């Protein structure tokens, strides 16, 4: 007892073997037990004197953790969480700048493609106009080719007869060539050979066929400054002679004899 081992026992500053020895002694000797208890009590009171009241909130936290067995709550310390937060925040900052640049690039691309689209649209419209012009031209040429083919047919066809109409006393310089096929009942006039003054807007020239002494209307035509084509007139199977008179616009039912320009007989 005098060695101070009881004090060291209470202070927890003792080896396991010594601890067992003290517990054995205490169990055997009530006097030693009383001495030990007195030391313990005074140390307990000393600890009470040095007590520090923990935070109020700690009471329910600790009681809950004891009663629900969550005894390893403490491994999740707040410091560890803070470190984790830092790690997460770094890549987030990186990726946000990436998206910023990506967005800018997208905008630039969008603008560029918009400009390209507008210029392409203009070119497309030009092309449409050109195509329309070409189609009109093409149509025009096709018509012309058809017409020329018709003219050529007249020249090649041996059934056509050509008659040169001579000027009358009223207009001695006038002249016109007429082609007629009795078999095909077709009549053409050659405007290139037409030698007559240009008619005004209220008059037209009219072609007549004389059949058995009676005039038959074969249609009207105009003399213009640059008329060079051949023109197909109304058809007739019979004709003794052809004549042209100047008539009011649209033609007359019967010829005005004093306005006869040319005449010719077979």
């Amino acid at each position, binding site marked *: 007892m005098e060695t*101070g081992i009881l004090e060291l*026992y*209470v202070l927890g500053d003792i080896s396991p073997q010594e601890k067992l020895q003290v517990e054995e002694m205490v169990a055997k000797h009530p006097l030693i037990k009383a001495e030990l208890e007195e030391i313990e*009590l005074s140390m307990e*009171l000393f*600890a009470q004197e040095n007590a*520090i009241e923990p935070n109020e909130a*700690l009471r329910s936290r600790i009681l809950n*953790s004891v009663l629900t067995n969550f005894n390893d709550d403490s491994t999740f310390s707040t410091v560890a969480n803070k470190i984790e937060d830092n790690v997460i925040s770094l890549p987030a900052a990186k990726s946000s700048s990436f998206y910023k640049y990506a967005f800018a690039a997208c905008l630039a691309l969008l603008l560029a493609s918009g400009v390209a689209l507008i210029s392409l649209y203009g070119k497309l419209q030009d092309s449409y106009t050109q195509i329309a012009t070409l189609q009109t031209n093409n149509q025009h040429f096709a018509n012309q080719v058809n017409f020329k083919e018709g003219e050529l047919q007249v020249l090649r066809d041996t059934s056509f007869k050509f008659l040169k109409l001579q000027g009358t006393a009223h207009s001695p310089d006038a002249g016109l060539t007429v082609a007629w096929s009795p078999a095909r009942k077709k009549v053409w006039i050659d405007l290139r050979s037409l030698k007559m003054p240009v008619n005004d807007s209220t008059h037209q020239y009219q072609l007549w066929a004389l059949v058995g002494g009676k005039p038959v209307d074969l249609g009207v035509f105009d003399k213009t400054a640059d008329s060079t084509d051949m023109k197909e007139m109304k058809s007739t199977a019979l004709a003794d002679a052809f004549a042209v008179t100047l008539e009011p616009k649209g033609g007359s039912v019967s010829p005005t004899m004093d306005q006869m320009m040319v005449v010719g007989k077979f």
Partner: protein
Amino acid sequence: MSRKQKISLSEEELVLALRNREKIAIEALYDMYSSSLYGVISRIIIDTPTSEDVLQETFVKIWHSFSSYSTEKGRLFTWMINIARNLAIDKLRSKDFKNQNKNQELENNVTSIDEQINTIYKPELLGIKDLVETLKPEQKSILDLVYFKGYTHVEAAEELGIPLGTIKTRLRMAIQQLRKHFN
């Protein structure tokens, strides 16, 4: 102060209730001893969140290993303060805690140093004044190291530069002074 009156039981009633694993036992245990145990723990670990964790671990361990306590071995508090002291020292020596201390920011150190050196009036230390007069300064510093900070008497001898025999004598003298004081 909204909390109801603290629960207090006699030590026999408390031990019995703890054996029967009654809910009231752990509440009474907390109300009666948490401040004494926290006084020891917070002297070993200055960082408040960590010392609170250790207090929690202490109560969990008391509750789960209560079957290893017997009244023959001594008073309940002696057994409990050993658990608290050992857990606190284990925490202090653990790898986690050492790393945490290394990584402490300057700001935190400034506040914790402030806390250590300032002399705020603490009402819970009111009774100490009598004790300071009862205990000689050299007795008090030895008790502080061994009882509160968990030094062995060998470590205390090295720390204070005093022969081992003197340490033992001073410890006995200090405790006898305390016995006189409390009687």
